[in-house]
């Protein structure tokens, strides 16, 4: 009961932030100039092509990164896991570096599709190699090593590029919700929905996964199938968010801990929606400050905030 009220409060907070994020911006205008009789084309353009995509990007990537982090932390039974242990961000960085610094282009969305393709290629490679081994921890090692390998190429590209293209690359690496366009909202939403669905149908496995594979098998759970679904879902989520918003690592690692501190529940029926709502709210909040680089803002403001919540709740939770 108490948890239901908590989830409702979080949903309400998210809704409030969504409305605020749609209304608030450097140019002031009311609802009537977008929908009403006194509609102006400038206000409509700002609404549909700037504020709406930005809000959608923040809500979806916040949800995607935090849920992906939660799923991977559970799967590997490691609280330091985040979406980027699988080499996803390195893959996306390589794609972006190839397109911005080396001038190669992939697909019709420019930088974004390069990031998506890079992320997918590296993820598929990491998953293929680690599927040869039985232990789940091998995936972490392969992911990290592949990440370093790919980062090496990125460094080579950086060293041999001009100052101008380097600046664009660096600004991608700082992360932003402002890059998603109206036309890309559809495909981004579909990718996030598929990823979330894959993880949501694995709740029964996630609840038992903390006690190991044999325990889950003993409960009649098809461990192999669910493990693959969770990894695939987490990869899709992280790859989508990274492609469209840049490598925002912090959300995926920290938000699951924040959600636990707030709910004090290790049941994923509660923890999963709580993580999703916290992630979206946090990203919306960070997205309100348009002029600051996202990664810097999240780290400088977000880390102390989350540390404070963790310390406050540590009275009944020994870290």
């Amino acid at each position, binding site marked *: 009961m108490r948890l239901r009220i908590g989830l409702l409060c979080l949903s309400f907070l998210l809704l409030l932030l969504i409305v605020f994020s749609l209304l608030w911006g450097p140019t002031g205008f009311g609802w009537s100039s977008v929908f009403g009789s006194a509609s102006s084309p400038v206000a409509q353009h700002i609404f549909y092509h700037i504020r709406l995509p930005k809000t959608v990007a923040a809500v979806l990537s916040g949800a995607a990164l935090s849920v992906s982090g939660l799923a991977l932390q559970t799967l590997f039974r490691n609280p330091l896991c985040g979406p980027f242990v699988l080499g996803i961000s390195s893959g996306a960085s390589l794609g972006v570096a190839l397109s911005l610094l080396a001038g190669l282009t992939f697909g019709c969305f420019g930088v974004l599709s390069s990031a998506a393709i890079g992320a997918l290629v590296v993820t598929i490679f990491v998953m293929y190699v680690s599927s040869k081994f039985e232990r789940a921890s091998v995936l972490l090692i392969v992911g990290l090593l592949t990440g370093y390998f790919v980062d090496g190429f990125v460094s080579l590209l950086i060293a041999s590029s001009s100052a101008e293209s380097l600046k664009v690359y660096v600004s991608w690496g700082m992360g932003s919700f402002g890059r998603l366009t109206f036309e890309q909202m559809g495909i981004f939403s579909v990718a996030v929905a598929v990823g979330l669905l894959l993880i949501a149908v694995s709740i*029964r496995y996630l609840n038992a996964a*903390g006690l*190991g594979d044999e325990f889950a098998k003993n*409960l009649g759970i098809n461990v192999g199938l669910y493990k693959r679904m969770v990894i695939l879902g987490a990869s899709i989520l992280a790859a989508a968010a990274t492609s469209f918003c840049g490598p925002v690592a912090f959300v995926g690692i920290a938000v699951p801990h924040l959600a636990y501190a707030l709910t004090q*529940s290790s049941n994923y029926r509660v923890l999963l929606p709580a993580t999703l709502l916290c992630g979206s709210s946090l990203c919306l909040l960070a997205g309100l400050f348009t002029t600051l680089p996202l990664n810097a803002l999240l780290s400088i403001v977000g880390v102390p905030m989350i540390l404070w919540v963790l310390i406050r709740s540590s009275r009944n939770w*020994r870290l």
Partner: protein
Amino acid sequence: MLLKAEKLEFGYKEPLCRPLDFSLASGEVVALIGANGCGKSSLLKTLGGLVPPLGGKVWASSVSLVRMGLTPPETMTVEEFVSLGRSPYSNFLDGRTHEDLLIIHEALAMMDLVGMARKKVVHLSDGERSRVFLAEAIAQQAQVLLLDEPNAFLDIPRSHFLFRTLRKLAEERGLGILVSTHSLEYAERYAHKILSFTGLGNVECALANEARQKGLFDWTEI
């Protein structure tokens, strides 16, 4: 008969003993004894369906392998852990019906855990933890419980309590229980039958009060 093994061969690659015939009836506690590494755990895992048999067949109604040595996630409470026992009956979203909640509460009450339902499992003592693991198995409502050295970390009074509880579960609820242990004392006192790995790939079974005369304990003295 709740569980029946015919000409069962088990192990990893090489069978660990001669083909084994074994059966477990309702209301029966069978103690499994043998030296370290002789195959007690492998036998339990094979009967529990976690490891495929190398030969022969196993028939079983619902079986649950209870492992006392597991470390649950730090954040998991007693109630949440026992609730996992209902997940074989839930759908993929892992919801709990009203009936599930009653069964969970009954399992907690039976193991005298209601007062600590909100405590974290990792903060409990070994004795309390063994009760939590048993409560989870009770909530599963499996007909057969397989236990792998449940008293390995328990002191003497708590070991007695544990085996008394197993016997009570078998007699009152009609479960079949196969429990591996290194304590002959508890095996003789609380089990109906004893299954012994007597060495050289032999496995023998006898009533608990006849096992000593029949030489089932000979391997324990070198």
